């Protein structure tokens, strides 16, 4: 029998607010000394009370709008009760039955096909502390406790590990466009759980779900899902039942490991958070937020196709990162040849970024200085290869391309007198070849050209040098 995977994703995203969800401690916890961004509120001290961070609510609504969700008119926070040492209050302030955003969708493209993944809900909650496990003890850093955390839950519309990966990539792109999160999986700013079940292809029933936790990179998402689908397929093929369990992805072993069985299912005893009055989200507020949304990747991609004549796949490539798209557009405004710029940017700049593992926002040179470089090639001051090596230098130092050309003497030699001198030297140094040429072997011309280029370190303006060489040889022949 052929099976089909049914996958739903729960993605937790740390929001890029300045302060925490319910207190004024800094939310920029990366790299901070342990327990230095903690106050009585986020440590859950007796008597303390939460106060909602408006920005976090707005970021969540922004995300909901970008994911085509409906925005709740009435939303509230609830307490989710469970014990864990990373949860200071013994409950997490979250949203249960009335999330901020619901019923949205996200389009992804897999194998040239657009797939629409429905979004069930987007809600807001608080992050937990970070635990560090050692042999028989665990250390707790509460810096992360209380950082705003947004949870994006999809419907089980994903059908393959690759779709899951594309879903996450698209989500990351949107979150970064919105500026609501770094969405950096490696740093834990975006964390992902997947639930997966199998069913006979064509069936509309749902099989028993297995939850996979701790998937912390795009690569692992695919690996973990592939592994789990394979495992369930084997069970079903052997006529065995899939148990409702929670597993974790073990990066080192490359397998999933059982974390919890059904008997240990939680009873979270959600109830409305009495310390926080509910939220009434006026349509005016939603409109204001909508007006502040940046152009989103899909819209930008379409515009790039019509405005700049890029192909759909080119437009997608350049719009995956907002910074790349912005860079591209800034360049186009200075140099109206989008296709040429597209190739330079996605060829050379993407390569340099890839080699160094860096991103557009850390680029050391401006669109202006990049266009200067292109102009140098156009004017014939430098050739294409020189331009590439200058770009490499600009990439590492940020220096102006004209300065680099000047400092290193990289400009092409277009001085007739100087080139004639070089040509004369080359001919003088190769009397045999000259004789052969004069004797009618015209193909020796290429040899002389090569020698001229060699003598000038490749800087001879090739057109001029060729013209002068021909003139000189003609002179000698007619003599």
């Amino acid at each position: 029998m052929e099976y089909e995977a049914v996958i739903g994703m729960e993605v937790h995203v740390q929001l890029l607010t300045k302060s925490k969800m319910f207190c004024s401690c800094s939310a920029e916890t990366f790299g901070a000394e342990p327990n230095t961004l903690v106050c009585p509120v986020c440590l859950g001290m007796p008597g303390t009370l939460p106060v909602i961070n408006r920005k976090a609510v707005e970021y969540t609504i922004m995300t909901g709008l970008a994911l085509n969700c409906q925005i709740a008119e009435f939303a509230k926070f609830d307490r989710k009760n469970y014990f864990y040492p990373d949860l200071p209050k013994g409950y997490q302030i979250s949203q249960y039955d009335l999330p901020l955003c619901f019923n949205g969708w996200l389009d992804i493209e897999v194998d040239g096909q657009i797939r629409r993944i429905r979004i069930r809900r987007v809600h807001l909650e608080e992050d937990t502390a970070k635990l560090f496990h050692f042999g028989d003890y665990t250390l707790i850093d509460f810096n992360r406790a209380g950082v705003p955390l947004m949870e994006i839950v999809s419907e089980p519309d994903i059908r393959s590990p690759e779709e899951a990966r594309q879903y996450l990539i698209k989500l990351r792109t949107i979150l970064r466009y919105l500026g609501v999160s770094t969405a950096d999986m490696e740093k834990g700013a975006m964390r992902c759980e997947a639930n997966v079940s199998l069913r006979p292809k064509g069936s509309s029933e749902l099989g028993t779900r297995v939850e996979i936790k701790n998937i912390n990179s795009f690569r692992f998402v695919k690996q973990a899902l592939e592994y789990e689908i394979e495992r369930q397929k084997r069970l079903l093929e052997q006529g065995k039942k899939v148990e409702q369990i929670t597993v974790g992805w073990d990066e080192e072993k490359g397998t999933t490991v059982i974390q919890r069985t059904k008997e240990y299912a939680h009873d979270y005893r959600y109830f409305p958070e009495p310390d926080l009055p509910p939220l009434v989200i006026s349509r005016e507020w939603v409109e204001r937020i909508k007006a502040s949304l940046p152009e989103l990747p899909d819209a930008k991609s379409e515009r790039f196709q019509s405005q700049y004549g890029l192909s759909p796949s080119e437009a997608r490539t350049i719009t995956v990162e907002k910074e790349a798209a912005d860079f591209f557009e800034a360049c186009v405004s200075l140099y109206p040849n989008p296709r040429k710029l597209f190739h330079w940017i996605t060829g050379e700049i993407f390569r340099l970024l890839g080699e160094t593992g860096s991103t557009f926002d850390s680029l050391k040179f401006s669109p202006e200085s990049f266009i200067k470089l292109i102009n140098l090639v156009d004017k014939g001051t430098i050739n294409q290869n020189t331009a590439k090596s200058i770009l490499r230098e600009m990439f590492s130092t940020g220096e102006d391309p004209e300065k680099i050309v000047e400092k290193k003497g990289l400009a092409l030699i277009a001085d007739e007198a100087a080139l004639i001198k070089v040509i004369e030297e080359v001919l003088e140094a190769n009397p045999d070849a000259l004789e052969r040429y004069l004797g009618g072997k015209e193909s020796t011309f290429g040899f002389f050209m090569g020698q001229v280029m060699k003598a000038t370190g490749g800087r001879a303006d090739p057109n001029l040098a060729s013209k002068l060489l021909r003139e000189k040889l003609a002179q000698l022949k007619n003599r």
Partner: protein
Amino acid sequence: MESALHHLSIYQAHKLLKEGQTTSVELTEAVLRQIEKVEGLVKAYITITPELALKQARLADEKILRHRKAGESFSPLLGIPISIKDIICTEGIRTTCASRILENFFPPYDATVVEKLKEAGAVIVGKTNLDEFAMGSSTENSAFFPTRNPWDLERVPGGSSGGSAAAVAAGECLGSLGTDTGGSVRQPAAFCGVTGLKPSYGRVSRYGLVAFASSLDQIGPITKDVTDAALLLSVIAGHDPKDSTSVDYPVPDYLKALVPEVKGVRVGVPKEYFIEGMEEGVEKAIREAIDCLEELGAEVVEISLPHTKYALPTYYLIAPAEASANLARYDGVKYGLYIPASELWEEYRLTRGNGFGPEVKRRIMLGTYALSAGYYDAYYLKAQKVRTLIKKDFDEAFEKVDVIVAPTSPTVAFKLGEKVEDPLKMYLSDVFTIPVNLAGICAISIPCGFSEGLPVGLQVMGPAFGEEKILRVAYAYEQATQWHLKRPPL
């Protein structure tokens, strides 16, 4: 005069300070001497802070002197020795909630009300005893010791703010801050013959009040008379950006509400509050009080609050449910008692199992049950719906009347140990105070006579943020009767 300094009201003491007839140090020393004399019998305090109090008193005297020289008026709390229920956080002063689990907890911050008291220049004498985490009606649930009623040491002072009420009655402070979740300010005030005010929900910041039931808790003054209650409330009320449930309505000068005049005031008497099982002497005192109000010109109207009898089960589902979450933070990790074991979850169970007393455990169990899968709708949600009906009863009543009067408690102070073994019987002693918390309205309990030699409390209830109305009626009654001047024979 000097020997009775500790029996002065805040207002009287302020007058003497203003006139230079006494000093804060003298007042504080008088209170500390009284504590030394009677505390062994009453046991109102968990922590006494004499050094801190005298230091604050000396500072207050310096300020008073400066104000007097400059001919300025000053805060009526400046230099006044007061006490604070030990469930309100005080920076650097142990805050135990009368629980083993917080026996050695020193908060790193002050509750907002404590900040306000300090700003006003009050002298903090100590932290008063209570039922553990404010769960109880007799102060017998304190993990450390029970407090005794200054009127009869064999009897309870009421609870959960029993320490505060007993301390005020016994002259061990001039006033106190208690907390009221289901009657915990009013019922002990009634039992000890003093005044206790439960402000409307949202009137006073809860920041720093260790939560029992967040949608019901309110901090309120326990004082020797109505004037002092108005005065303390004026200081502690107001919006606090740290408490999202505190309202930003302006705070009136409650002293201005103290007009001894109730002509034309419509006073509702709910028939459901005169039930079987009410003590005869209590009913008699209350009926006399109502007659007195009528004589003073109030218009007495019989009203009905039909859902009154459902208030008790409603409360004992909602409050424990909220408490079960509020008390989940005590796990031995960040603060408080920690009992080592071989394994983490066993440490949690042992720490909590040993750190909490029987009543707290009972309520955590009840609340957890009411919220658990399969029972949420039948218990917690049902209670929330009935809460709507109880609130509606009051809303409708306050369309007809300005205030509602009723007994604070169906009985006078009962004997120690009398109800400890029967939790339900203990719960029933809150039957008249609980509806006020569920509706979020305000109420005050004032002395209105005696039954078998023990004080009876008259409860005056008002609509949400109608504190001025209840203060006015209470003040008029107090001035007409003078029951508040009676002192226990200690």
